[in-house]
């Protein structure tokens, strides 16, 4: 049975886990930035020593957005009445009424944050789960022998469609046929699901290392996918490049996508790849990503309500069942406590 609460969670992103927010460089030292995540308004606040905080973008006094206020180094002053809030969410001062009982109270929600591979991750717990879930980072972002370069983009479409696109490797042979990396391989395939301790592989049974032939969904406190795509010889030594993909549910109809392109290269091989990437390859990768964006943004809002799926969609079906079940469980658990 679905409820409006479960529908809302399914549409705006699962709670009680970590999600990527924006690239780290979007918030410079001493700056702040308004962001929307899971359909809610937040304020990223960075002190001059680079320490990052994430606060609900809502003054505890009258609800004005703190993001319109003033950065005071270790706190933000609301523009409306000057109420000052520290980065842990505590009201430090009510200038209009010194000694007011708001002072000293933690009235603004603040989220645990981590910065990983050039991106901000935050933990979005519901009221029953305020403490952050254990987070295991993707190995390609922590392994010293692997070099990863982040690409971030914002798409007008539901977050689920962006994840489903990644659990659908077969689109590579068609949508990306005119590309520098996915032009090759068979246009027919059989797929299987292979369970892992942290998610599942969805992979071709009859081709590997030619196109976008497999993907692993990993649920390690944050949801991410791992996949590998062959490079042409022009990209130099190091073999295929991998992608760690994450998705930020911005709201019901907008999505931030995070793609770390990674390669197991070191020394001059690493330097060569990075140089070629910046100079020539990044633009080609971008053109491939744009093909995905154009397709997903053109999908009708009810695309997943009127389908005729076939064997290649097993990975998508499983993903939906997993997310749907979890959204319903989260909604049911919250309903019991209210």
């Amino acid at each position: 049975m679905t409820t409006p609460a479960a529908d809302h969670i399914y549409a705006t992103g699962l709670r009680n886990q970590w999600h990527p927010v924006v690239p780290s460089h979007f918030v410079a030292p001493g700056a702040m930035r308004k962001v929307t995540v899971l359909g809610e308004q937040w304020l990223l606040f960075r002190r001059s020593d680079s320490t990052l905080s994430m606060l609900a973008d809502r003054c505890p006094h009258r609800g004005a957005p703190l993001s319109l206020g003033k950065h005071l180094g270790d706190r933000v002053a609301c523009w409306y009445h000057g109420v000052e809030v520290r980065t842990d969410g505590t009201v430090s001062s009510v200038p209009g009424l010194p000694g007011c009982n708001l002072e000293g109270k933690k009235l603004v929600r603040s989220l645990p944050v981590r910065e990983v591979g050039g991106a901000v991750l935050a933990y979005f717990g519901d009221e029953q789960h305020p403490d952050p879930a254990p987070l295991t980072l993707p190995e390609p972002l922590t392994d010293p022998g692997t070099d990863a370069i982040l690409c971030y983009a914002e798409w007008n479409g539901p977050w689920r469609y962006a994840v489903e696109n990644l659990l659908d490797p077969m689109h590579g042979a068609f949508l990306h046929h005119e590309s520098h990396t996915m032009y090759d391989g068979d246009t027919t395939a059989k797929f299987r699901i292979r369970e892992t301790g942290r998610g599942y592989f969805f992979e071709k049974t009859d081709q590997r290392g030619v196109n976008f032939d497999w993907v692993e969904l990993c649920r390690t406190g944050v949801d991410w996918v791992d996949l590998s795509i062959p490079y042409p010889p022009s990209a130099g030594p190091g073999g295929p490049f991998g992608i760690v993909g994450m998705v930020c549910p911005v709201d019901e109809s907008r999505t931030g996508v995070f793609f770390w392109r990674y390669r197991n290269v070191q020394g001059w091989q690493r330097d060569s790849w990075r140089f070629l990437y910046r100079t020539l390859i990044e633009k080609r990768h971008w053109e491939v990503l744009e093909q995905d964006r154009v397709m997903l943004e053109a999908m009708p809002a009810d695309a997943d309500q009127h389908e005729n799926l076939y064997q290649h969609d097993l990975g998508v079906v499983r993903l939906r069942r997993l997310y749907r079940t979890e959204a319903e469980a989260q909604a049911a658990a919250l309903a019991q406590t209210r």
Partner: protein
Amino acid sequence: MSTDWPYLDVHQSRTHEPTPYEYQLASTLEEVFTKDGHELTDVVSGLNTRQVHAPDGSPWTEESFRAEIHRLGA
């Protein structure tokens, strides 16, 4: 930093628009990797054969290529 939606920036890894020298070196490297091979000796001889030299005009050595590609790709 613009906060306009959507953020769609082709180049996110660059610190500057590549110079003509950098573009030429990159495209020649791609040709060398495609036609000559992936070893460092292939790269040095491939660039020198094509007269695409170091910025000071001298032929590449393994040491000078390592140093320059590190400067460009670090």
